[in-house]
C-alpha cells in the first residue's frame, strides 16, 4: 500500500468500531447468559455496559478477552475474530488490551512497583532505568508514585484499583476493560476513579469498556451505554437517551425500584401453602 493510500485508509479505520459482537450466545450449564446479542464498541470512547448483578457483564468482558468461548456467534476486536485466533495470536492481541479486574488482581507477592512493572518484565527487555521511568510515569498518572514501595497488603481497596489501572496501562493498550471499578468504594475514591477513567481515556486516546451497575457514576462518564438483562440488550444509547427511556425494565434499573419487571419476591409457592392458611372465603353478598 502506498503512503498516500495509507493516509486515506487511517481515518476510515478510525470510524470502524473497535469491537463487534455478532449474534453471541453463551450459557453456563443450563443457564442461558446471552441469547443472540449483538453490539459494537466504538473507538476512542467510553462505553458503559450496565445491568443488575448476574446478567453476565463480567462474562462479556471475558468473552471479549478470549478467556471464555461462546456457544455461538463471533467477537471481533480490531479486525480479529478472537475465538479463531491461535494462542500466540490471542496473547499478542491481549498485549494491546488492558483489564482492570473487580478487586485489582494484583500479585500479592510483589510490591506496587513490581506489580506495575510485571508486564514490561515479561514482554520486553528494557533497560532497568527506562523501565523504572515508565513505571513511575504510570504510577504518577494514577497518583501513587509515592506508594511504589508498598506491598499490596498495605493498600486500601481504592489504591489497589489505581495500581491495577497503572498496570493495565503500562503496555499502552488500545483498549481498557473496567470490571466493576466502583464497587465498594468510598465517595472520595469513587470521585478519583471516575475522573481517572475519563481523563486517561481522553489523554491516552484509549477506548474503554466500563462494566458497572453504579448508575450515576457510569452515566456521568460514558459516551454510550448498553443495558443488559435476561440475556438481551434491552436498551442502548447515550446516557441522556437511557435516562429518558420509558420502558419499565430500564426505569426500574435506573431508579432502583424494589419491584417491577424484576420482582421483589423470589419465586415461591403461595402464602396460603407456606403458612398453612385456610383458603380465602368469597365475601357473601
Amino acid at each position, binding site marked *: 500500500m502506498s503512503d498516500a493510500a495509507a493516509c486515506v485508509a487511517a481515518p476510515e479505520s478510525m470510524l470502524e468500531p473497535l469491537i463487534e459482537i455478532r449474534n453471541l450466545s453463551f450459557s453456563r450449564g443450563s443457564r442461558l447468559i446471552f441469547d443472540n446479542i449483538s453490539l459494537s464498541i466504538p473507538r476512542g470512547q467510553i462505553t458503559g455496559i450496565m445491568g443488575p448483578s448476574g446478567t453476565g457483564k463480567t462474562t462479556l468482558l471475558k468473552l471479549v*478477552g478470549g*478467556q471464555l468461548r461462546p456457544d455461538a456467534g463471533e467477537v471481533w476486536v480490531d479486525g480479529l475474530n478472537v475465538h479463531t485466533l491461535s494462542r500466540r495470536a490471542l*496473547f*499478542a492481541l*491481549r*498485549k494491546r*488490551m488492558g*483489564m482492570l*479486574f*473487580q*478487586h485489582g*488482581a*494484583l*500479585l*500479592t507477592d510483589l510490591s506496587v512497583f513490581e506489580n506495575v512493572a*510485571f*508486564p514490561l518484565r*515479561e*514482554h520486553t527487555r528494557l533497560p532497568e532505568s527506562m523501565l523504572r521511568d515508565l513505571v513511575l510515569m504510570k504510577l504518577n498518572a494514577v497518583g501513587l508514585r509515592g506508594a511504589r514501595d508498598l506491598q499490596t497488603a498495605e493498600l486500601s481497596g481504592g489504591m489497589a484499583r489505581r495500581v491495577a489501572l497503572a*498496570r493495565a496501562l503500562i503496555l499502552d493498550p488500545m483498549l481498557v476493560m473496567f470490571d466493576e471499578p466502583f464497587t465498594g468504594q468510598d465517595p472520595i475514591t469513587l470521585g478519583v476513579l471516575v475522573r481517572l477513567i475519563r481523563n486517561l481515556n481522553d489523554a491516552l486516546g484509549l477506548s474503554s469498556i466500563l462494566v458497572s451497575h453504579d448508575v450515576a457514576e457510569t452515566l456521568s462518564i460514558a459516551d454510550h451505554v448498553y443495558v443488559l438483562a435476561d440475556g438481551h440488550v434491552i436498551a442502548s444509547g447515550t446516557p441522556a437517551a437511557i435516562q429518558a427511556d420509558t420502558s419499565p425494565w430500564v426505569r426500574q434499573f435506573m431508579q432502583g425500584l424494589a419491584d417491577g419487571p424484576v420482582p421483589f419476591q423470589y419465586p415461591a409457592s403461595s402464602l396460603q401453602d407456606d403458612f398453612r392458611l385456610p383458603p380465602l372465603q368469597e365475601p357473601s353478598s
Partner: protein
Amino acid sequence: MMRPVLNLLARIGQGVMEALARLGRWFVFMLGLLPALPASLLRPRLIVDQLYQVGVLSLQIILVAGAFVGMVLGLQGYSILATYGSAESLGVVVALSLVRELGPVLTALLFAGRAGSALTAELGLMKSTEQLAGMEMMAVDPLKRVVAPRFWAGVLTMPLLAALFSLVGVLGGYAIGVGLLGVDSGSYWSQIQSQVDFREDIINGVIKSVLFGVVAVWIALFEGYDCVPTAEGVSRATTRTVVNTSLAVLGLDFVMTALMFNV
C-alpha cells in the same frame, strides 16, 4: 416406589460424570504443563525462589522428624536385635529402613503436609483473587510463569530432603544406639558401610524420592489450579492434596518396593 431408586442412580451417574470431568481436567492440566516445563528452565531465578519456598522452609520439619524417626528406630531395633544377640547390626537396620523406605516415604508425606498444602493454598488463593486470570489477560501464561517453576522446585527438592531425612535419622539412631544403649560405634558404622549397597539401596531410594516428588508436587499444583475459587474451595483442595498425595505415595511405594527389591 421408583423415585428413591432413580435418585440413587442419578447420584451415581452424577458422581461418575464429575469424576470423568475431573480426570479430563487433569489431562488438560498435564498437557498444558508439559510443554511449559522446558521453557521455565530458562528462567532459573523463578525456580531458585521456589526452591527456597518449597525446600528450605521444609527443612525444619524434615530434620526434626528425621531425628525422631532415627531415634525410635534405634530404640526399637536395639530391643529386638538384643534378643538375638546381634545388637551390633543396629546400624544396618536403621540405615536400610531409612534409605529404602522411611526416608522417601515419610519425606513425601511430610512434604505433602508442609509444602504441598502450601502450594495448593497459594495457587488456590491466586485463582480466587483472579491473579491467574489477570496474568492470562496480560498475555502471561500462568502455567509457565507460576506453575512450572514450582514443579521443578518440588521435584528437585524431594530427593535432597529425603537424603537429609535419612542422614539425620542415621545420626539419631547412632545417638540412641551408641550413645545411650552402648552399641559399639565401630560396629554401627562398619555394618552400614558393608551392608548398604550404593546401587541397590541408595539409588533405588533416590529413584523413589524423585518419583514421589513428581507425584506430590503434581497433585498439589493440580488441586490448587483446579480448585473452586472460593475460600471453601481452597480449603477443600488443600485437604485433597494431603489425602491424595498420602494415598498415592503409599500405594506407589508398595509397587516400587515390589519391583525394586525383588521381594
